[in-house]
């Protein structure tokens, strides 16, 4: 459980705060998407969630621990895993298993348990068998899954992903989203910061940020249907959603358009 209580954050030497009095609570086992234009404060939110940045005003609580409390810094960071956009830049180890071990090694986990955690994390992202592979020989999708495994090895209750699929091809993106869906059903909270509203459809809840403020907080389809908010945020509904809307306008009954399968099923029931 991550709670933002009236959080404001300003970067040094900036006139306008990057986040302005944001209050949200992110529950365990949920999938939340965070959307917004560049500079809307999405990445700042991610770095505040695990205490890499500390709020200028207000507080952030992770499982009841204040991130500003230095005594809890390592607990906070291990319970909120952070995955960044470019997988190449966050892989530290010279081989896959060494990289996964990096987090728990820093926490001083004993060797027998390290082995278990590494094997478990690699199994969770489907990279079992590639333990000794060098990272630069992996595909981009595999690299990003490796980065997720690195966070998982610290046994986090929550994963914050800062545009995890922005640099991936369609296949890699599918792999990563499938892994995230599995993690969520195993109880890990997912916070996916994304530009892609189609990806946001994986979430039950979407938080839209606009100039550091929460402009929308609620279910995804409702945001997509709310043209006023969409327009003011400069967001465009995904093509599939627009297609479904156009079809509805012509009298087809399409209840939900989360995936192409939903639409096909509605048009041509099997």
């Amino acid at each position, binding site marked *: 459980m991550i709670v933002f209580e009236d959080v404001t954050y300003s970067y040094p030497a900036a006139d306008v705060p990057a986040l302005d009095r944001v209050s949200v609570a992110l529950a365990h086992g949920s999938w939340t998407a965070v959307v917004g234009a560049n500079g809307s404060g999405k990445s700042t939110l991610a*770095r505040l969630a*695990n205490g*890499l940045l500390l709020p200028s005003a207000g507080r952030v609580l992770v499982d009841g621990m204040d991130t500003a409390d230095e005594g809890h810094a*390592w607990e906070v*960071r*291990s319970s909120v*895993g*952070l995955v*960044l956009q*470019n997988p*190449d*830049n*966050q*892989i*530290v*180890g*010279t*081989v896959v*298993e*060494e990289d996964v*071990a*990096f*987090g*728990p*090694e*820093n*926490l*001083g*986990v*004993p*060797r027998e348990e*390290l*082995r278990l955690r*590494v094997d478990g994390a690699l199994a969770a992202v489907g990279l079992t068998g590639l333990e000794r592979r*060098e*990272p*630069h*020989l992996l595909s981009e999708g595999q690299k990003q899954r490796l*980065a997720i495994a*690195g*966070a998982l090895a*610290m046994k986090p209750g929550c994963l914050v992903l800062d545009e995890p699929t922005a640099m991936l091809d369609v296949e890699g993106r599918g792999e990563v989203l499938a892994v995230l869906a599995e993690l969520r059903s195993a109880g890990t909270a997912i916070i996916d910061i994304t530009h892609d509203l189609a990806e946001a459809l994986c979430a039950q809840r979407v938080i839209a940020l606009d100039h550091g403020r929460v402009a929308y907080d609620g279910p995804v389809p409702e945001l997509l249907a709310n043209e006023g908010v969409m327009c003011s945020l400069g967001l465009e509904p995904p093509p599939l959603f627009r297609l479904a809307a156009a079809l509805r306008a012509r009298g087809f009954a399409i209840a939900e358009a989360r995936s192409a399968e939903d639409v096909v099923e509605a048009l041509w029931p099997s």
Partner: protein
Amino acid sequence: MRAPVAFGQYVPADSPVHALDARTKMGLVAAFTVSLFLMHDLAGLAVAGVLVALVVRVSQVPWRIALRGTKAVTVILVITLAAHALRWNPATVSLVRLGPLAVDGPGLVTGIFFAFRIVLLVVGTSLLTLTTSPVALTDGLETLMRPLERLRFPASEVAMMLTIALRFIPTTAQEAEKILVAQTARGARFDESGPIRRAKAFGPVLVPLFVNLFRRADDLATAMEARCYRGGIGRTRLHESVMRSSDWAVLCLGTFGLIALGLVL
């Protein structure tokens, strides 16, 4: 696509030499170097040469690669030989004479001695890097440096820096290649002759490469902090290189043997 970028000199193989701990090999190389400098005639060097040849055979490193290191010292070898063997207008009898220039017999022997010692030194030490992976070398160095932590030397941090450098060499090489292609597509020329022109041509590659490296470093720092990195304090390791009893045996016997050899011959 070109083949994956190869770096370092490591020749992977499944040999008893490869199986030795990096520290054992470092110790033996040190002993071998001392031994070479203790020897004072060609007979001793010949024995050392046979030893090196044996190790090369056992390690399955191809001869071509094992001898590659000597190419870099060719000039030194030639100068060493010439300085010892050539005489200008000597009064003594010499082997060959070409006008005033003469090849002196004993001088030639001394020259060969020194040149051969350099060759053995180069081949012997390069066997360490040829048969030990860079990762194993770094790990070995870390454990060797660990006692220095008492003197506030940041051994674990230095090892982490080396590991990260190793990790990013292939990534950076791949990126350099991408930028090279991109700049070629924009009309940059990398085929011009002359070292200065060629160096200048690489400016458009190096600048974006460095800018990106700084960006990477920033990201990496964030990622490492997010994964609780706080220096070497309280860190455990998934793999700790272990000196097995065979390593100790090889190290002790080898060092003793090599030094004894150096003293006797």
